[in-house]
């Protein structure tokens, strides 16, 4: 058991790191009323179980130390002890606002390691689900950010749109959140005409609905004043801090994994990379709004271009057979047994594969020793890197601005804590 003195030293270690840090930030007319404020881990504005220790002078933030680990489930350790197929279900729980993109990211990594490629139809299905997940995730990002600065209506309107996408995911994957939809070498279920018609209906209304939502915020004086020039980060600093995704593009860096290291069939799709120069909270909001329009554009093209054909690659040693075949054919039963019990045994080697997730670049670094389990699976989670730059962003702002900045960088703790 821990004694009281031990508990005190533990506390002081976090405090030390806050108080002894030379932030290089001084206020001329210091109020001499410095205090340390603890925000979180249970606080609705921290978007999960993020804990912040903030050093204040009056109401101005002088220093800040984020504390992670309240949602740490040890996914990298679990990955080392499960087969590649088993770990797909765990990727749902990383960025739980966009589970479908995580599924895609992990299967792409395993496919790169094993040296297999999915079929053209599966590629398009994966692009469809990734972009659907992007819109759904950005909807939450914008809705919660607006709520954090006091505009409640937007959240409800955003969730109304998101709900339509969740319905499509429900029809396609059989689950709304914990989808576990992709498989190594393909996907679990085929994209049906019902999904197509639901998505078409959604896309028809989407532009108008997004316009309506934007009207609530873009002409809202309070929203603009609360977010403009708040949490500014320059392009050089953003690169140095490793920001990716919308947060990096809001600072004017044109880095999008879909274009930089093309995967799936994004090469043949026409879309723009949205960049803004300002690098403040407002720019991050604008990037997300415009990205949703681009995603809608990609979805329309995918619906037009999606080819017919099988959804799973033919590679019996690595790709799970259809359930109907397992029950009726001897070879498929054997292969199914071997894949489930011993895994897919990719060759010895190591790869890093990344995709553009709604939150940024989600990468998997897989080391294989030739067995059915990964020897090492490192998850490069964008949210962890984003939260790292939080102290920089909120320094010198007011306490009430902290929630606006957290809302604008849009972290998800399931991913940050792994």
């Amino acid at each position, binding site marked *: 058991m821990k004694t009281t003195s031990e508990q005190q030293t533990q506390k002081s270690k976090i405090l030390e790191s806050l108080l002894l840090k030379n932030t290089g930030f001084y206020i001329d007319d210091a109020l001499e009323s410095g205090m340390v404020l603890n925000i979180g881990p249970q606080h609705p504005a921290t978007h999960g179980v993020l804990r912040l220790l903030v050093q204040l002078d009056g109401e101005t933030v002088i220093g800040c130390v984020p504390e992670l*680990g309240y949602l740490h489930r*040890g996914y990298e350790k679990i990955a*080392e002890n499960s087969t590649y197929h088993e770990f797909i279900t765990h990727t749902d729980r990383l960025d739980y606002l966009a589970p479908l993109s995580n599924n895609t990211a992990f299967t792409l990594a395993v496919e790169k390691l094993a040296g297999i490629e999915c079929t053209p139809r599966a590629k398009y299905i994966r692009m469809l689900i990734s972009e659907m997940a992007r819109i759904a995730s950005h909807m939450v990002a914008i809705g919660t950010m607006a709520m954090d600065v006091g505009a409640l209506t937007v959240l409800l309107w955003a969730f109304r749109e998101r709900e339509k996408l969740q319905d499509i995911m429900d029809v396609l994957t059989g689950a709304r959140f914990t989808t576990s939809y992709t498989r190594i070498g393909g996907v679990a279920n085929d994209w049906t005409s019902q999904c197509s018609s639901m998505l078409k209906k959604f896309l028809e209304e989407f532009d108008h609905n997004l316009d309506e939502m934007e009207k609530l915020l873009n002409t809202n004086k309070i929203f603009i004043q609360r977010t403009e020039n708040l949490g500014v980060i320059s392009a050089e600093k953003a690169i140095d801090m*490793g920001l990716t995704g919308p947060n990096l593009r809001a600072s004017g860096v044109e880095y999008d994994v879909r274009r930089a*290291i093309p995967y799936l069939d994004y090469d043949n799709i026409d879309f723009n990379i949205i960049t803004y120069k300002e690098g403040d909270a407002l720019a991050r909001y604008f990037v997300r709004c415009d990205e949703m329009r681009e995603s809608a554009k990609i979805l329309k093209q995918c619906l037009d271009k999606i080819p017919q054909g099988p959804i799973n690659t033919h590679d019996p040693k690595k790709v799970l057979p259809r359930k109907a075949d397992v029950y009726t054919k001897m070879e498929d039963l054997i292969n199914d047994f071997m894949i489930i019990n011993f895994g897919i045994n990719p060759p010895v080697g190591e790869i*890093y594969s990344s995709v553009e997730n709604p939150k940024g670049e989600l*990468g998997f670094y897989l*080391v294989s020793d030739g067995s059915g389990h990964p*020897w090492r699976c490192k998850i490069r989670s964008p949210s962890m890197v984003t939260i790292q730059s939080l102290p920089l962003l909120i320094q010198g702002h007011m306490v009430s601005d902290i929630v606006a900045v957290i809302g604008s960088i849009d972290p998800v703790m399931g991913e940050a804590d792994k």
Partner: protein
Amino acid sequence: MTELTEKKLKEKFSDFITEVIYFRNEQTFIVNKSQILNILTFLRDDPELLFNFLIDLCGVDRAKRNDRFEVVYRLFSLKNKQSLRIKCRIDENDLNIDSVTGVFGTADWHERETYDMFGINFINHPDLRRLYMPEDYQYYPLRKDFPLLGIPGSIPLPKK
């Protein structure tokens, strides 16, 4: 582009590069840990290579008698759209390596995570604390000798 990187690195640090590996179109250099700061600074500042983005930094436990641990750096060049992996092998008896926080600011938390999970000590790190596990935790969970189920009693339960 990969040839140019290899040529330039070998010109400058020929004595410190142990191995160059190519696998699935990915380039990996295994380098001596004493030169890691110089190598990363060179790769970042060279006007042709410009590997200015540290995407990822992590540790690997290879469970070998010699050079048990690895620290893996993944760099990306925003200009050339090229990526690269640098690896340093670290012996269990000398778990020290220079921190690269001075070269890439993003390395800060990645190094804290590596310290947390493998117990690798990053010299000159500004704030080397555990990232995920409790401050007074005594074990390093991602080492291969740490059991999946954890060690009973290692995290005390709160008093009733």
